[in-house]
C-alpha cells in the first residue's frame, strides 16, 4: 500500500534528516566533516538501550543517552577539532573517524556485536486512518524531528546566537574579527549536532526496536549523502535530502526488493547529482548559507 510506504519512508527519512542536519551544522559552520556523528547516533540508541535495560524509566534513559552524547562530542571538539585548527583540514576528519571506531569498539566490548532488541514503547497505541496504520511512537518521532528542525531554523535566523553562527558559516575570519568568541561557540555547535544525531539514534531505536554498535554506519553514509544531495551547507537541503532518501529506500524495498536497495538509493542520488551538481536546494547564495 503506497500511502503506508510513504508514512514509513517519511519516518525513516526524518532520521536521515536529523543526521544530515547534524553533518550540515558541522561542515556548513565549522567546515569540518565530523565523522564522529554516526558514532553519536549509535551512542544515542545504544546508551538509551543500556539505560532501559538497567531498569531506568525511558525518559531518564533517553536523557542519559543525550547527555552522554553531548559529553563525547565535547571531547571530540577538544581532542579532534580544536588542536587541528590552522593545520591540514583533513586532520580533524581523520581523528573524528578515529572517534567513531573507538565508540563502536567500546560498545562492542560492553554489549557484543549482535543486534539487541529495544523494548517497544507505546506499543499498542496506533492511529488508524482507513487502511493506514501509524504507530504513536512513529507519529511522535516524526513530529519531534520536524519540530526540532523548524526550531533550529528559527534559532539560526532570529536569535543573536544564530546570527553569530551564520556569520561563522559565512566567514570564520569575519566572525572572529567582529568579536565572535569561537572557543565558546564551537563547543556549543558540537553539542548541538550531537543532540541531533543522538536524538536520531534514540528515535531509530524506538521505531525499529533494534540497536547495535554498528547502527551508525549505514545511517551515517545516508546522512552524508542526504546533505550532499540537498545542497551542502543548507539546512533545508539536508531536510529535503534526508526525507527523499528515506522515501526512495522504503519504496524501492517494497517495489524492487531489499537486495538492491543501496543500488537504487545511491544510483538515484548519483543521477540527481549529475543533473544538479550543486544539490537540490543548490549552493545557497552566500548571504543565506544556513
Amino acid at each position, binding site marked *: 500500500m503506497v500511502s503506508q510506504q510513504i508514512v514509513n519512508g517519511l519516518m525513516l527519512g526524518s532520521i536521515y534528516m536529523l543526521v544530515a542536519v547534524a553533518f550540515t551544522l558541522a561542515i556548513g559552520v565549522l567546515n569540518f566533516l565530523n565523522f564522529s556523528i554516526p558514532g553519536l547516533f549509535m551512542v544515542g540508541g545504544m546508551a538509551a538501550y543500556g539505560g532501559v535495560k538497567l531498569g531506568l524509566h525511558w525518559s531518564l534513559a533517553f536523557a542519559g543517552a543525550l547527555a552522554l552524547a553531548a559529553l563525547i562530542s565535547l571531547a571530540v571538539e577538544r581532542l579532534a577539532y580544536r588542536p587541528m*585548527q590552522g593545520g591540514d583540514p583533513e586532520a580533524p576528519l581523520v581523528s573524528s573517524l578515529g572517534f567513531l571506531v573507538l565508540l563502536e569498539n567500546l560498545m562492542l566490548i560492553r554489549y557484543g556485536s549482535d543486534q539487541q532488541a529495544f523494548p517497544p514503547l507505546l506499543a499498542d497505541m496506533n492511529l488508524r486512518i482507513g487502511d493506514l496504520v501509524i504507530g504513536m511512537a512513529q507519529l511522535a518521532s516524526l513530529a519531534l524531528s520536524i519540530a526540532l528542525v523548524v526550531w533550529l531554523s528559527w534559532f539560526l535566523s532570529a536569535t543573536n546566537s544564530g546570527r*553569530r553562527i551564520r556569520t561563522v558559516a559565512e566567514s570564520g*575570519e*569575519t566572525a572572529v574579527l567582529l*568579536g565572535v568568541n569561537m572557543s565558546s561557540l564551537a563547543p556549543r555547535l558540537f553539542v548541538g549536532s550531537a543532540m541531533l544525531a543522538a536524538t536520531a539514534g534514540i528515535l531509530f531505536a524506538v521505531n525499529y526496536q533494534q540497536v547495535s554498535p554498528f547502527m551508525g554506519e549505514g545511517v551515517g553514509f545516508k546522512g552524508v549523502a542526504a546533505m550532499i544531495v540537498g545542497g551542502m551547507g543548507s539546512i533545508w537541503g539536508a531536510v529535503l535530502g534526508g526525507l527523499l532518501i528515506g522515501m526512495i529506500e522504503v519504496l524501492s524495498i517494497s517495489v524492487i526488493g531489499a537486495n538492491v536497495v543501496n543500488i537504487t538509493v545511491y544510483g538515484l542520488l548519483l543521477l540527481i547529482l549529475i543533473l544538479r551538481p550543486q544539490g537540490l536546494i543548490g549552493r545557497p547564495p552566500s*548571504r543565506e548559507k544556513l
Partner: protein
Amino acid sequence: MSATEGAAFIELENVYVERAGVRVLDNVSLTLRAGDRLAVVGANGAGKTTLLRTITGLQKATSGTVRAFGRVRRTQEDFREVRIRAAYLFQDADDQLFCPTVLEDVAFGPLNMGLNEQAALEKANATLAFLGMEHLGERITRRLSGGEKRLVCLAGVLAMEPDVLLLDEPTNSLDAKHVEKLMTVLSSLDKSMIIVSHDRPILDRLATRAVRMKDCRLEPAVLHRHPHVHEHLHVHVGEDHA
C-alpha cells in the same frame, strides 16, 4: 621613545611569516604607540595585508613575537582581545555586512563583546549619530551604495570602541564624496591607526609616519623622502586645532 610617544599598543619583533611555504614577512619589526598613525605603503603582493592579518592573529607568525596591549599574543584566545581593541576595517565591505539592517550590523560587534541587546543597539545608534548616519539605521544594508557600506563598516568597528584601527586600503573603489567623508571622520578620531594605502594624498592627510613594505621586509622612515607629506601634516594639525 620619549614619554610623549605614549604606550606601545602593538609591537612586532623579528616576525617571519610563511604562506604555502613561501616567505611573506621577513624579519619584520614594528611598534605602534598611542597616537601613532602609521602609513604602510608598498607594491601589490609586498605583504601589507599579511602584516595586518598577523597583528590580528588571522595569520600565524612562523617565528618572532607579536605583542599587543602589553602582552605577548600566541593563541586564538590571546588574539580575541586584540581583535576587539585593534579593529580591522574590511577591504571589501560586503565581507563585514550580513545583517538585514544597518543598525543590526553596527550592533553586532558590541553584542559579541557581551553587551545586552538594548545596550548594543544604543551603542550602535550613538555610533551612527556620531558619523552623521543615524538616518541609515533602518535601511537594508545590502541596498546601500558602496561608499555608504564602507562607512557602515567603519561604524561597526567604531562601535566596539577600539584603541587602534587597522585600515586596509580604506578608500579603494570609493567615490570622491565618500573618500572625503571617510577622511574627515578618520582624521577627527583620537585613535592610533595603521593605514595601508596607495593613495598618497590620503596618507599625507592622515599619517604621522610611514613605513614601506618591500620584498616582504619593512623599510622605515620613507616619509622623510616625501617632504609633501610634512607640509600637509602641518595643515592637518592646524585644522585640528581650529
